[in-house]
Structures are given as C-alpha cells and as structure tokens.
C-alpha cells in the first residue's frame, strides 16, 4: 500500500522513487457546504468491469467511477450548428501533422523508429483544445434558455476560452479564479477583460448576486477563501451554480489527463500526480482519484504549469481513466518512469519541439512530449504515434526561459 507523505522540507528526491500500487482502501467524501441537491453514490457494478467498451451506463458510471453526482446532465444534439461553428469560428479540423524532424530525432542507430504525428490543437482559435468544449456547452446553454455562464479556471486558458464564446454568443459570463492564479496569469486576466470581463476582487466570495448589466459583461472574481487556487475557485463555482441553477449553466472544464506533473517528485508530497498517487474519494460531484492526507483533507498539488495544478476530475473522462487505471491497463507503465522524466525533461521537451519543428508547445503539452523520450526506444519500427499538441506555448515563454 502506498501512503502519501505530508509536504515537508523541499528535498529533491531523485532515486528514491517507490513503486506505486493502486489501493482503494480509503474512500471519504468531500461535500461543499451549501449543496442543495443530493449526491448519488454508485454501487459496485457487475459485468461492466469486463467490458472493453468505454461507454458509461445510464447513470454515467465507468465501472465504479464517474456517475451523476451533479444536478444537470442534459445532452442535446445540435450537430449541424455546432459543426459550422467548429469549422468557421474555431478553425477545425485541425491538421494531423507528420513531424518529420521529431521522427528523425527518435530514429535508432539502425534507422528504425516510430513515426510521430502531432494533432494540432494548438491551431484552434484561442490556441488550445479547450474551446471545443466551451463552444459546445455555450450552444447547449442557449438551447436550455440559460443567460448566465459560469466557469472556473486555473491557468486562465479555460477562462479565456469561455469568455471568448460568451462574447460570441452574447451570454453573461462569470469566471472564478483563485487570487494566486490571477497573479500568475495576469495577462490572461486582462484578456478576459478585453473580451468583456470586469475583474472584481472580493475578499469573500460565497454568495453570488445576480447583477443585471447593460451589456453582456464577464465577471472574474478573485476567490480569497482557502488557498486561493483552482480548487477553491471550483467550489465557489459549484456554489454559484447550485444557487442559480435556473438561469445558469456551468461550463465544465475537461482537463488534460494522461501524463501528470510530478512536480518535485512523487515522494516529496509536492506534486500533482493524482492518478498515480491518489486515492479514491469524491470531490465536486464525481468519484475519482484525489490527493488526500490521512484525515481525508485535500492536499494542495504543486506543479510548474498552472493548468495541471489540480486534478479535480469532474467530467466522465475522469471516471473513464480511473476505471482504466483500476484495471491496471493504463497508468502502470507510466508510474515507474513519470517521476524523473517529467522533472528533468519537460523543459527540454518544450525546447526540442520548438527547435525541431518550429512549434512552441504549451508547457502542459510538453509533459506528453517529454514522455516520447521514454516511449520511442521501446516502439517497433514504423509504429504510428499520435501526440495531442493540446495548446501553443506563447503564454509559457517567460516561464520556460527562466528554466532553460
């Protein structure tokens, strides 16, 4: 069994990485205080565990994960309108680009190696994949007759994407952002303002007032409760939504998953590797892996890239990955090598793609790129690897330059 160490002095453990095995011993719950809707806990599913088709059941469960713990899960299909917006506004489809020089880089001395393709989500309007989700949800909100959009954001990317679509669709928008994150991402805050945002610095932000405005304005509120990061912002967002559920749609952010940020190393206690080191609990409405201490309190994750700083998986995707992990199919090959890989190579990966392909990736994306160093030597000749280039890295140049 793996226990999570409490954060202590910042030593940089390099070789003392222990094998992480996944345990399900501790299941505790975390509920926002003023939640007025009931949460449904899933029971142990039966044959679903045997199936290899990753579809949720009618309650939205993937095995024991996922589930409908939040009040609203309507899915409408307005494909034609959505497709037109994705094409003309977002700029889809994005290319699947054969990265010739990256492929060359991974060729072995005998000339063999995999072929690397990049899915160019960095070319989307707003520079990341997040707008796909934001656009679809905005359409959904309009269909549902909602006038108000709320969203939470960590790095600001989701906030900018949400503010963007709200401007486009003429919706009132409120974005919750932790005060610490707001400082780190000041330029993104400004961009949200340009898109119509008004930044309100509230000391305490619990009750949401329905402010009627002349024009559609987007409000960004500084959340000063707790540690003022995404986790707190998310709790506030849920509180808002629950209070205003009649008029409000909550645009959930589907987070980057697959390769996690190991921060200062998985044993230091200062990392964001929820899936690798976390344990099962409920946060924000869905059962998923969390970083918890022995008292069931959430541990603050740590990573250089704000977007990967929290692993609060609300969407079904989390349940899906958790299920796969439970089946030991997915993350175990990652677990052993993630630690040194991410710390040492992430910045190098950022630089490598810039130099070899002239594409500057987001720091978040660089985590995935870093893994290629470990992966490619093990792949047979001609294997086709598709890497999701989830965002562009203009925003990260200042940070990256310091570490290069």
């Amino acid at each position, binding site marked *: 069994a793996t226990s999570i160490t409490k954060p202590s002095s910042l030593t940089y453990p390099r070789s003392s990485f222990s094998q992480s095995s996944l345990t399900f011993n501790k299941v505790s719950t975390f509920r926002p205080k003023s939640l007025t809707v009931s949460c449904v806990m899933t029971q142990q599913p039966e044959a679903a565990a045997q199936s290899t088709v990753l579809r949720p059941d009618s309650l939205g469960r993937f095995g024991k994960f996922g589930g409908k713990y939040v009040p609203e899960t309507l899915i409408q299909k307005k494909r034609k309108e959505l497709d037109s917006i994705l094409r*003309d506004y977002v700029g889809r489809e994005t290319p699947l680009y054969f990265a010739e020089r990256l492929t060359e880089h991974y060729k072995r001395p005998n000339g063999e190696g995999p072929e690397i393709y990049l899915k160019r989500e960095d070319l989307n*309007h707003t520079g990341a994949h997040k707008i796909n989700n934001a656009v679809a949800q905005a359409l959904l909100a309009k269909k549902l007759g909602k006038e108000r959009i709320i969203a939470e954001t960590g790095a600001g990317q989701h906030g900018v994407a949400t503010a963007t679509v709200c401007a486009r669709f003429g919706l009132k928008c409120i974005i919750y952002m932790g005060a610490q994150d707001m400082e780190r991402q000041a330029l993104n805050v400004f961009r949200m303002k340009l898109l119509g945002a008004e930044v309100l610095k509230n000391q305490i932000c619990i009750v949401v007032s329905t402010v009627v405005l002349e024009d559609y304005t987007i409000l960004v509120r500084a959340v000063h409760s707790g540690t003022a990061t995404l986790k707190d912002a998310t709790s506030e967002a849920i509180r808002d939504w629950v209070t205003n559920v009649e008029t409000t749609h909550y645009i959930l952010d589907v987070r980057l998953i697959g390769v996690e940020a190991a921060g200062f190393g998985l044993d230091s206690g200062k990392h964001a590797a929820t899936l690798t080191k976390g344990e099962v609990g409920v946060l924000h409405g869905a059962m998923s892996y969390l970083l918890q201490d022995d008292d069931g309190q959430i541990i603050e994750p740590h990573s250089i890239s704000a977007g990967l700083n929290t692993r609060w998986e609300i969407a079904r995707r989390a349940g899906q990955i958790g299920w796969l992990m439970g089946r030991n199919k997915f993350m175990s090959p990652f677990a052993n090598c993630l630690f040194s890989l991410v710390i040492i190579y992430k910045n190098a990966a950022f630089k490598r793609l810039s130099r070899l392909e002239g594409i500057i990736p987001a720091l978040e994306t660089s985590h995935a790129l870093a893994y290629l160093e470990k992966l490619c030597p093990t792949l047979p000749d001609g294997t086709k690897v598709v890497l999701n280039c989830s965002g562009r890295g203009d925003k990260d140049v200042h940070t990256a330059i310091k570490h290069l």
Partner: protein
Amino acid sequence: TISTVSGEKNPIVGKFGSFGGKFVGEVLISPLAELESEFNSVLLDHDFKMEVETALRDYVGRETPLYHAQKLTDHYKNINGEGPEIYIKREDLSHGGSYKMNNVVAQAILAKRMGRKSIITATNMLRKPSNVQLMELLGAQKVTKSIKQRKKVKVKPVEGSFQAAASESTREWISNLQTGYYLAGTAVGPHPIPTMVREFNSVIGKETRRQAMEKWGGSPDVLVACVGTGCNALGLFHEFVGDKNVRMIGVEGGGVGTNTGGDQLHSASLVRGEVGVYHGAMCYLLQDEQGQITKTQSIASGLEFPGVSPELSFLKDAGRIECYTVTDQEALDAYKRVCRLEGIVPALEASHAFAYLEKLCPKLPHGAKVVVNCSGTGYNDAATVLNS
C-alpha cells in the same frame, strides 16, 4: 505573365506600370536573376506545389475559415435592419498567428531546392520584445519567422529602425551569396521579390473565392485589408483584380493625428506619399522635401513602413483600389469592438481594416458581402492595448 497585373496594357516583366523594377547595386543583379529563374521554374513544378500545399495544410493549418461575423453584421445594421454582411477571413488562425507563414513556408521550400543552408531576413522588433524570445527559442532550420538570423539563430539587434535592419541583412546576404537565402517578408523590394511574395500569399484570395461561392454562390462585393507594405492586402486582392465588380479597400496607419493630414507622424505611404525608389523598387513612399525617408509611426508596428508594394502603388494609380487611413485611436476602438462582439482578437494591424468598417458600412447597400482580412491575431498586442 505572372509578374504583372492582369489588365495591364503593355506588361513588362518586373514592372507594374512605372512602379517596381530593380534599383539595386550591380552585385545583386545576378543573384536576383537566379532567384527569378528559380521562382519561375517552381511555379510550373508539380512537386513544389504539392510540397507547399502539404506544408500549408498540415503545418500552417490552411485553409483558414471565411467566418460569418453575425454580431458585427448586426452592429452595422441601420434602424430598418438593413446593412452589409460581414465576413472575416481568419488568417489569425494560421500557425504563427498571421498570414506571414504562407510566404515564409513557400520561400523556405524554395531555398532548400536551391541548396541554400541558411536564411537571412530582417524584422521589426519594436514593441514586441517577447518575439525576440520566441525567435531565440525556435531554430532556423525548417521554417523561420522573419528575423535577422543565421541557421543557428542569432538575433542581431541593429541600432535604429527596420530600414537599418533591412540594409544590414542585405549586406549579410551579399557576403553569403552561395549558401545564404534572403527571405523577403515584405512585398517591397527589387524584382522578383514583390511578385514572389504576392504570389505566395495569393492562396488567401483563392480560398476566399472558393469559400464565397460555397457560402453564397457569388463573389465578395467589398474586400478590406490593412496595408503596411501590402502583402496581406495583395494576398486577398490579387485573385479578384480582374473582377470589376469587386471593390478593394486598403487601410493604412494614420498614426496619432487625424485622417485629414497635418504634421503628426503616420504610416500612410499610399494615401499621403510620393513616388520614389525604396529598397530597390519604384513605389509610393514617405519622404521629406530633401527626398529623405521620413520617420513613420503607428500603434501597429507592422504598418510602420515608409514604402509600399509597387503592385499596390500601380493599382492605386489605376483606380483599381481605394486607400484610406485610420488613426491609432480608431484602430484601438476596433480592436476592443471585435473582441467584445465576436470573441476574436485581431492584430492591431488588422484592427485598422476593422476600424474602416465604421465609415464603410453605412454607405453599403443591404446585403452587400464584405470580406475583411483578419491578417493576424492580437493575442500579443494585449500589453500595448493595456498601456494605451
């Protein structure tokens, strides 16, 4: 021939009426001739075209959308609910964030064909210090941003203006004629540069024609683009030069002053300039009574250029294009307007084109189709806008 404007009476290769030409020192005559012959041959080369097309599609992300801007359209409707339909050509979605990649990619492929090992170019780095970091991060191997650099990326700061950088990079080219390739990022230069840069950007107009046909079964009625040196404007306009029913409007940087003239600095070569020779080409340019190049100014650094494309100069004289200016303040207002209404952040350069819509739209008939070239993203202009 491709080197002239359609409809010209007695076309001479490399000249657009009396504009254009090759006003360069002896030492550059032969390299330019080599470039011209190489350029002419690749235009007929299927493999070259395929390589460029693939790069434009998979690397740059073409084709870029022709986006119907409903909220901008509504903004320009009069009390009766009448007004033109505004479409935005989304060059801001290209890799690199602007239309410039079209030309750079094609020329880089050309350079490789010619067996060149290094790329030399000049760029304006005013007010965009973060771009320098980006340039240093990128290698110069495959595709380069238009900067003054060698293969292993050395950004050499040159005292003074873009003109100084251009002269310096030309000197660099002359000392590396065998292995170096001078990548012109602007449409101003000795023949074949204006033609080449226009040709490689003409994909914008070609796509627009096809997209317009798909969307409304016709051609655009009005094309609007900002003009610095004229490459993005020509990229959109060139395809439609022969279509007499398509109006073309170029919008230049009016700077701090007013649009009616005065002593304030600006960058309006076409609107307020005179004919002269600049960077090896006869064109409209901004000069004082002694014939010295005047200082230019615009909130959009990409528009700060004293000369302008010889081809656009010709089109202006021929009455084929209309040219206007827009002040810094009008451009800033347009930047904010497009952000707020459409969630699209236009470059400050492109904001000049959007700004002109304020004057244009009230005069257009109901349902007229207007295509505005959003030549780049204003993501990195946020700091400038904040400080203004």
